[in-house]
């Protein structure tokens, strides 16, 4: 069994140490995703806490055949962040507005495999074309819904859905080509 799946199996039996181990491995990733989506350290920390509490509660819903533990955890995190975005009255101004959490990213790791991942992803995103890449960025990192994207980009709802789907599948195919 995959080591992270093994940790979730232990978590399903109520093993708190398994949660601690998962936090040790994935806490930084969850926090960084929340920070990127919410542009707020305070809310990102709330998402971090709520994600691991949800993971503890929902561990029995994890299905290895549907994806990795990381995908499961990051999806919980993303949904927590999306809830907070929906609850806000104002939306973040721009995808490039990093001012609020510059300090946190100054501490960010630059492990060799992280850099490789970033380069691979950047190449794959470039290959999507500017508009589809932007669509994916807005949907994934900024959490815009189909309806919001339709209004933001002045694009029919059906077109948003089909282009986003196409962009995600194209990204997936490019990443799989690049994978070792």
């Amino acid at each position, binding site marked *: 069994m995959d080591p992270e799946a093994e940790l979730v199996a232990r978590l399903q039996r*109520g093993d*708190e*140490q398994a*949660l*601690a*181990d998962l*936090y*040790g491995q994935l*806490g*930084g*990733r*969850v*926090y*960084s*995703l929340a*920070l*990127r989506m919410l542009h707020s350290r305070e809310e990102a*920390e709330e998402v*971090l*806490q709520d994600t*691991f*509490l949800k993971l*503890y509660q929902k561990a029995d819903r994890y299905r290895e*055949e*549907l*994806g*990795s533990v*990381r*995908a499961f955890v*990051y*999806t919980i995190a*993303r949904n927590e962040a*999306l809830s907070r975005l929906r609850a806000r009255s104002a939306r973040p101004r721009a995808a490039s507005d990093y001012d609020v*959490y510059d300090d*946190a*990213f100054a*501490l*960010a*790791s*630059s492990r060799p495999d*992280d850099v490789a*991942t*970033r380069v*691979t*992803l*950047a190449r794959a995103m470039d290959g999507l074309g500017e508009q589809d890449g932007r669509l994916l960025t807005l*949907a*994934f*990192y900024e959490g815009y*819904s*189909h309806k919001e994207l339709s209004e933001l980009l002045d694009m029919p709802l059906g077109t948003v*859905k089909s282009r*986003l*789907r196409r962009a*995600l*599948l194209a*990204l*997936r195919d490019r*990443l*799989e080509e690049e994978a070792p």
Partner: protein
Amino acid sequence: MSHPQDLLPDYALGTLGAEERARVEAHLEDCEACRTEVRRTSESLVRLVEALPEAPPPPGAWDAIQARLPAASSEVPAGVSQGPTRRPARSSWRGWAALAALVLVLAGGWWGFGEVRQVERLRAEQQQVARWLAQPQVERMPLLDKAGDKLGGLLMLPDGRALFVLQHPPAAGRAYQAWGHKGDRLVSLGVFERPVFEVPYEDYEALYLSLEPEAGSGRPTHGLAAVDL
């Protein structure tokens, strides 16, 4: 049944409404091909997350999570008595908190005016133990003497630091001395008159604890416990 191809990417993204999500999940129960699709797409999303620069979680976040978990049973440390050189199963941190409290009680004795400083020192040691226990990646193991009786415990962090937490301070006129075993050498890691002390463990094959005269010794004269690393 037709495959909900159009919905699978959104399912992986987590953006489907409740009704559509339920429909997709029902379909996935019986369709390996669609499960594979979802799994592949999920993994692309993992890459989207992991391409972000990773910022460290704020200190204290894990403590807050732990405080919000449902109360677990307060079991005693599950130390496996396999002698002093085996690393046993991990134990409940609540057992360790009890051990830290024991350090305070046993070592503190009954204090009067002249021993306020001693109480403060004991509290500081207890807080030190509690801080170590709160680290998400701390490893914990009992320290057993040659007879298999418990002397205390050892906490270890991935950054190469270890904390000895002993049940009793050394006898009067004596001190604990910690050693690192490297190749054919024993390296003194310090002489300690207190029951809680930190040593580095990186690069060593084992850690030893001995009881020595107050000023320490050039080599162990009274071995107490050993831990293989």
